[in-house]
């Protein structure tokens, strides 16, 4: 099964990289960008066909390694 874990910075955590990207978009003249926050996407292939089991494994992966829950939130999706 294909799955995706998306890791984003929590609200209120300063994101200097997002700010720099925001500035670069402004200087490129891309209109209408209010703000940018940078995150990470992990595309993961999960063994087996048990959706609940896959979600549990992905949650464990996110909690134990993919996200630092001090500063980051994550979202787990089983795509197929």
């Amino acid at each position, binding site marked *: 099964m294909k799955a995706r874990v998306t890791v984003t910075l929590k609200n209120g*955590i*300063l994101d*200097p*990289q997002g700010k720099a990207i925001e500035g670069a978009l402004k200087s490129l003249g891309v209109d209408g960008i209010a703000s940018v926050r940078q995150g990470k996407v992990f595309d993961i292939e999960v063994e087996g066909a048990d959706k609940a089991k896959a979600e549990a494994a992905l949650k464990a992966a996110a909690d134990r*390694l993919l996200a630092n829950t001090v*500063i980051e939130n994550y979202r787990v999706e089983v795509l197929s």
Partner: protein
Amino acid sequence: MKAAVLVFPGINRERDMARTLKLVSGTEPAMVWHAETELPKGTDLVVIPGGFSYGDYLRCGAIAARAPVMDAVRAHAAKGGLVLGVCNGFQILCESGLLPGVLMRNAKLKFICRDVHLRVERSDTPFTRGYNAGQVIRVPVAHGEGNYAADEDTIRRLEGEGRVLYRYCSPAGEVGDTHNINGAAASIAGIVNDKGNVLGMMPHPENHVEEIMGCTDGRGLFAGLAAHLERAA
């Protein structure tokens, strides 16, 4: 002093650290590979040096923090054993949960490689007994992610319990935004855990220990550790 210096793929300051430990204590430290599951018998100080473990992939220190040897380090720390993490070592300690908080991208996004001044906040700890409280020392930094961050409660607890041992400051010892090189909360350069036996710091005291380096201000930290361990032995 029976020190163990941890070696992870991508670490590059381990030999500076080993040289300093030998210089100050007279004893060669053991170099311990990350895949080991035990520390050498009798280890009284674990040092996690600087560098770029695993190429800083995922987050600085994130992968090293999950290496097999870290369980042994956790057990060592739980028994009250001393642990010192410098630069990437500090990041690894935060990622492993041995220290609270996290090291974020420097506020101005630049890698900073230069000497900085640190104020030693107290002298009654194994990591600062080689200095006087309020003393200002000059040591190098070399990092892109040294911007210490934690939630307000954690910062309040660190301050309240006197766990901030080193702070960025001016040559005269003033702390403030202009001297806070990377935007760290409360100008934090180094903190200890709640038991006071695990120190993480971004600057490199091991690189200011001999006259030929142009400064010996970093020596006090290691001399203090050696004196502490000698007294304990």
